[in-house]
């Protein structure tokens, strides 16, 4: 009964919404999420629920795959450091609000040490510990030896390495050219561009939350929700045929899912205007092209008068539009996911003739 409810709520449309909502709550109320009480209680709750879930044979069979164990470690690491950063940031924010300055700036914390030997020794031991860990890992979890590759057969489900499963989940909503090349390219370029866009010296060398709200929220949404959480979906909730399966649901090959995806052009011309699709592909896709033009070009210009005004002033024109491009590009992913879930929309712009779809 409870398990069925969890299976139902794990469906991406609910679980993604819930994670996004919790993320927004964290940004709005960091002092609640960052408190020691909240951290302790949620740690206990997570451990108890996880132990209870492990007792389920189906869940255990998925979670104990050698490929999936790194993700458990990743989850613990990301959640732990994310909470710790909020906790320290909130503590400092209180001190800064009281006019005391961050805790890292107090005289007893300003002591300086030499890189050699303090840092180099630490790095050396961290390196040795990592090597030992990897060797032990390699001994206990052997790499699978499978039959020779066959170009006319694929395993079902065919899954990417665990760290790319978020990308594979992203590909469900996009064309391979977009989700495989353009969006990862924008992610890499965006990460490289951060020092250029973000010249704000606040937060250098000390934890803070209130002083860097937009930067932290923007980055962490892309990292924790759009990357880490999609890895969870791709790993634990996608079974044969990349169909959704709840955490306690047996991976039945014949789970029937009714789905019929429709392009925006078909909504616009056939359902909206009650006529056939035009022959010319640019006229056919005009609704999607206009929509994307408004979203990527007019929206940043319009935002300069509203929410973006202070960023335009502090960043300058080039940095502002670069930032807007990156933020809007990132927001395309959740937008496209919701469009798919609610309207079974396949592509906003669909030009398979040019291998170009969005």
């Amino acid at each position, binding site marked *: 009964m409870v398990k069925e409810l969890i299976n139902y709520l794990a469906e991406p449309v609910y679980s993604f919404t819930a994670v996004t909502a919790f993320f927004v709550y964290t940004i709005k109320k960091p002092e609640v999420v960052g408190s020691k009480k909240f951290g302790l209680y949620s740690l206990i709750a997570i451990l108890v629920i996880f132990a209870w879930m492990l007792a389920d044979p189906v869940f255990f069979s998925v979670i104990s795959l050698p490929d999936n164990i790194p993700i458990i470690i990743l989850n613990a690491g990301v959640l732990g450091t994310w909470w710790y950063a909020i906790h320290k940031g909130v503590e400092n924010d209180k001190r800064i609000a009281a006019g005391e300055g961050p805790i890292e700036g107090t005289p007893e914390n300003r002591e300086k040490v030499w890189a050699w030997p303090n840092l180099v020794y630490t790095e050396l031991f961290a390196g040795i510990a990592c090597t030992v860990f990897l060797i032990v890992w390699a001994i206990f979890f052997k790499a699978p030896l499978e039959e020779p590759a*066959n*170009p*006319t*057969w*694929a*395993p*079902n*489900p*065919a899954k990417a390495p665990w760290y790319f499963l978020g990308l*594979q989940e992203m*590909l*469900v*909503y*996009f*064309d*391979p050219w977009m989700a*495989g090349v353009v969006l990862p390219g924008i992610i890499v370029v965006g990460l490289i561009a951060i020092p250029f866009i973000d010249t704000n010296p606040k937060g250098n060398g000390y934890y803070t939350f209130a002083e860097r709200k937009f930067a932290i929220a923007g980055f962490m949404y892309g990292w924790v929700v759009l990357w880490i959480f999609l890895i969870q979906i791709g790993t634990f909730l996608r079974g*044969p*045929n*990349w*169909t959704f399966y709840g955490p306690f649901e047996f991976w039945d*090959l*014949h789970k*029937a*899912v009714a*789905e*019929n*995806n429709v392009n925006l052009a078909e909504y616009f011309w056939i359902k909206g205007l009650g006529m056939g699709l035009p022959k010319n592909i640019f006229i056919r896709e005009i609704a999607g092209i206009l929509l994307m033009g408004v979203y990527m070009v007019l929206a940043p210009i319009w935002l300069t008068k509203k929410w973006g005004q202070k960023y335009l002033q502090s960043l300058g024109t080039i940095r502002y539009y670069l930032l807007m491009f990156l933020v809007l590009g990132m927001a395309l992913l959740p937008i496209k996911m919701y469009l798919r879930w609610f309207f079974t929309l*396949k*592509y906003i712009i*669909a030009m*398979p*003739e040019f*291998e170009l*779809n969005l």
Partner: protein
Amino acid sequence: MSEEVKTSLNRREFFSFLAVGWITFGAAVTGLLSFVFRFLYPNVVFEPAMDFVAGFPDEYPEGVDERWKNGFGVWIYKKDGKFVALSNICTHLGCIPTWLPAESKFKCPCHGSGYYPNGINFEGPAPRPLERYKVSLNPEGKIIVDKTKVFRYEKGEWGYDGAYIDV
């Protein structure tokens, strides 16, 4: 007195030496790069032939037939007197879909694209239908599937000669 020993090149000689040197260097580098380029291609390719004889049309039942899928990557689909050869490569990212007879659809294991038995995409992210290979009849009346020629639906090629045969 012996002839005057030349100690330096004049301008014309210098440039001709320079030209010879650069041409030699360029030729050597090009030669080496051509080896590297050649190295990118395998010596032996264990790939099935691009065309094959698929027997008589009446050997096939109505609907999807998987007998050539593992060897050649081709599904035979026969329906209402039309006979087509479908590629088994998903048009989304090139995985190999599975034929699910119970659901009567092809379903890709990578991102969940789904296709009707005739190859039209209807679910998941696949942007276009499965490609069709050229089919023809040889003088004996057997079917020849030629994978070098593909017909794409979105380009309106499924009605072309060779995209199907009437049986």
